[in-house]
């Protein structure tokens, strides 16, 4: 059994357990969307303290990025009826270009936590308003986030709060705020839900903002978790935050997101962190830093102990190739892999873990990797060129190419057999009879693209 104190203490490299390329890759995958070759090199060179600071603090976004992204999200370019694909593509673009990947990563975590889908909301402006709420608190206060979520326009539509009446309250939000957003099943009663539903009456959307209409609100006394009062929705959020189960519930979810899907942590491991989170009044940034700096985060039990989400798979691949990808086709491809941003399958969000992979989505991943690396796919091919990448990094021989690719995408975590097979392929592909009109460069590029695709189909690459 792991000593909780030691587990959460900051990691410090030792000669037996040094700071290396694998740890840099691990940090960039979990705290962001994966590393480029130069980020991996810099991470090793700069050492663990500097690299952790860099990843945790991020850098300010460039003016150009902020202006363009904001403009694309303005009502003029993204009206309420904008198609789903444009919404997802907008966020994918941010993930690809941001200088603070950790913040976008945690925004994705909270999007999955407060899983709201435009399939029902049908209003891109509301979805973006919710994105801004989440993004501004992603590494901030969960108290604020949970409280404000109760009157967020997209959420009001998504869980029907905006049609709930004093005479006949709708229980949808009251249930999910306890079951999925703060406490988890087993920490409240059906009576708590019915009482809390009365507190969430009278909320409506005016001029794109959620407000409480006192005349439609049930102002009488309610009893929730054994406490009585004339509660409003905000009061219910407070009661949930004060509930014993709240911090633990969120900490467990973040553990699964940042550390491991492969095990269910013991209460002894979770409790000290939950206590810290509660005492900090739900300061998520501080809490995430503790997790990402910890011994446990860098322990072998956490290493590749997650399945990549489709977004991690796609963004990580494009980033590592130092390429450009049209995020509209990328968003479309991600649908086949089971992850549409701003449209999770249900209020529980994406299940994650092993649920990401099935026969269809696995083929989808292989085929997306192919599309990104091949010239034959008009959507991505010419702009994510492994040949150019290899040239940029002075890769001259087949053996160097294989080692470079395995180092870039897997930090060498592939069995020796895989390396041999990739080299064998490159050898075979030299002997193949190519069309007469192919130049030597065409052949060389084809081999580079093909072998890159093969690396991306290795089972290890599915792990985060």
């Amino acid at each position, binding site marked *: 059994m792991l000593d909780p104190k030691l587990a959460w203490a900051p990691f410090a490299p030792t000669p037996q357990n040094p700071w290396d390329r694998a740890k840099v890759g691990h940090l960039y995958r979990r705290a962001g969307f994966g590393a480029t070759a130069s980020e991996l090199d810099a991470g090793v060179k700069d050492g663990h303290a500097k690299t952790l600071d860099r990843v945790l603090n991020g850098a300010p976004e460039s003016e150009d990025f902020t202006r363009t992204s904001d403009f694309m999200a303005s009502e003029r370019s993204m009206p309420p009826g904008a198609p789903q694909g444009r919404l997802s593509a907008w966020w994918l673009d941010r993930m690809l270009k941001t200088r603070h990947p950790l913040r976008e990563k945690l925004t994705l975590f909270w999007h999955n936590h407060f899983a709201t889908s435009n399939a029902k909301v049908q209003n891109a402006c509301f979805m973006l308003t919710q994105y801004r709420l989440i993004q501004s608190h992603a590494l901030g206060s969960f108290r604020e986030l949970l409280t404000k979520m109760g009157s967020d326009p997209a959420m009001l539509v998504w869980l029907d709060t905006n049609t709930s009446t004093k005479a006949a309250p709708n229980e949808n939000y009251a249930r999910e705020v306890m079951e999925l957003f703060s406490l988890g099943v087993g920490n409240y009663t059906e009576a708590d839900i019915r009482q809390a539903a009365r507190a969430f009456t009278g909320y409506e959307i005016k001029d794109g903002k959620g407000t409480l209409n006192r005349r439609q609100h049930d102002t009488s006394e309610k009893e929730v978790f054994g406490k009585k009062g004339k509660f409003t929705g905000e009061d219910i959020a407070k009661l949930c935050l004060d509930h014993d189960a709240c911090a633990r519930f969120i900490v467990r979810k973040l553990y699964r997101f940042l550390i491991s899907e492969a095990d269910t942590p013991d209460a002894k491991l979770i409790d000290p962190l939950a206590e810290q989170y509660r005492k900090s009044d739900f300061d998520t940034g501080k809490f995430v830093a503790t997790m990402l700096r910890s011994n446990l985060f860098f322990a072998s039990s956490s290493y*590749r*102990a997650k399945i990549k989400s489709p977004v991690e798979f796609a963004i990580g691949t494009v980033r590592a190739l130092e390429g450009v990808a049209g995020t509209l086709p990328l968003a479309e491809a991600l*649908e086949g892999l089971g992850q549409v941003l701003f449209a999770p399958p249900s209020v529980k969000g994406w299940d994650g873990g092993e649920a990401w992979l099935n026969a269809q989505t696995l083929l989808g991943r292989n*085929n997306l990797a192919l599309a990104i690396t091949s010239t034959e796919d008009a959507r991505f091919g010419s702009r994510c060129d492994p040949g150019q990448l290899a040239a940029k990094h002075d890769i001259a021989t087949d053996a160097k190419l294989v080692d470079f690719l395995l180092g870039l995408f897997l930090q060498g975590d592939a069995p020796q057999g895989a390396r041999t097979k990739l080299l064998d392929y490159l050898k075979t592909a030299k002997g193949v009879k190519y069309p007469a009109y192919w130049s030597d460069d065409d052949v060389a590029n084809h081999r580079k693209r093909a072998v890159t695709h093969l690396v991306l189909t290795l089972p290890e690459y599915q792990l985060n």
Partner: protein
Amino acid sequence: MTTRRDFLRDSSLLGFGATVPAFLGRTAYSAPLAAKPGARDTVLVVVQLTGGNDGLNTVVPFTNADYYKLRPTIAVAKDQVKKLTDDVGLHPAMGALAKLYTDDSAVCVVQGVGYPNPSQSHFRSMDVWHAASTAETLTAGWLGTALKKQPVPGFHLASGNETSPLALAGAPVRVPSITSLDDFKLKMVSVTGADAAAQKNVITSSAPSTSETPALLDFVARTQMNTYASSEKLASIGKNYTPKVPYPTSALANKLKLAAQLIDAGIGTRLFYVSIDGFDTHAGQGGATGAHANLLTQVSEAISAFYRDMVGRGHGKRLCVMTFSEFGRRAYENGSKGTDHGASAPMFLVGGNVKSGVVGDHPSLKGLKEGNLVHGTDFRQVYAAVLDRWLDVDSKPIVGDGFKAVEVFAK
């Protein structure tokens, strides 16, 4: 059309060589063929109505005054109901299913199905139905466990956003999820057959797992192997399937049409799992028409077309379609002209060998428990019937003791 011989030729293990593990060889590839004498070749198609189907507006107690009192704006009027008995009838959107009931005697309606102390959480209750258990931690599904005893090939016919259901977890070989035959292919950029073969060899020959292999990596490797084998297998199935009857245009109908194609291809597939989402009708669900009615139309018309297509191809007696939802909805409507989470609801079984009729009583509207309908039949009694009588798997180790199978199949 694909003949069985085509299939046997095309599904040979060439290309997978020695890497196909023994468990796969025993199951996906060695399924009893439909024509093999003595082989039981029943097919089960589970249709999941996700979100909590409003059972009270599905099988309507149209002579009950309380029903109309509880639902002032969303009740279905007596003269619109498709009568099943003197007291209950189907929602008017389910005309196609009603016709299968009256004209073809191919529908069994089990009323008031649920379980004790029902959870009103979508996710917990769905897990209970999938695992056929109310234990706190649920990791294996009722069908996955059945596949251990009776390892027949199956498919989860999925939508893009849908993950493999818990019901299928625990199977010795992962039941593949597929969305369409067209997309179910491993693609490669290759200029020649030799190049393609060389690439394919790298992709499909992952290193064998050892006891040292971490569980997640082993999971990925097994999923890959199973996927490449299935993809190879399905590549042989004819691209053009012409149904015997027209199917409506809906996602559910497309999935069932794909099931029909796979059943008719004669590759021994006997289990299908499909879902249709949207039944969480908290607001504006409508009555005889509207959102809920549209969902019921899709279910009724898709299942009806599927059944008639299968009858047309001689598979009618082999087929059993079973519907379920994680719970029914509150007996009384809420202020949003919808219904909140409730408890018991009806299940449908459709097929050439089901005992057509209405089983069990309609739940009492006088004896509500906290506004919810109390179940008369435990869902595990229906599962027991399906397992024992349809899949030929002993139900006791799966659903537990004390669940007497209900009579849903013809003698």
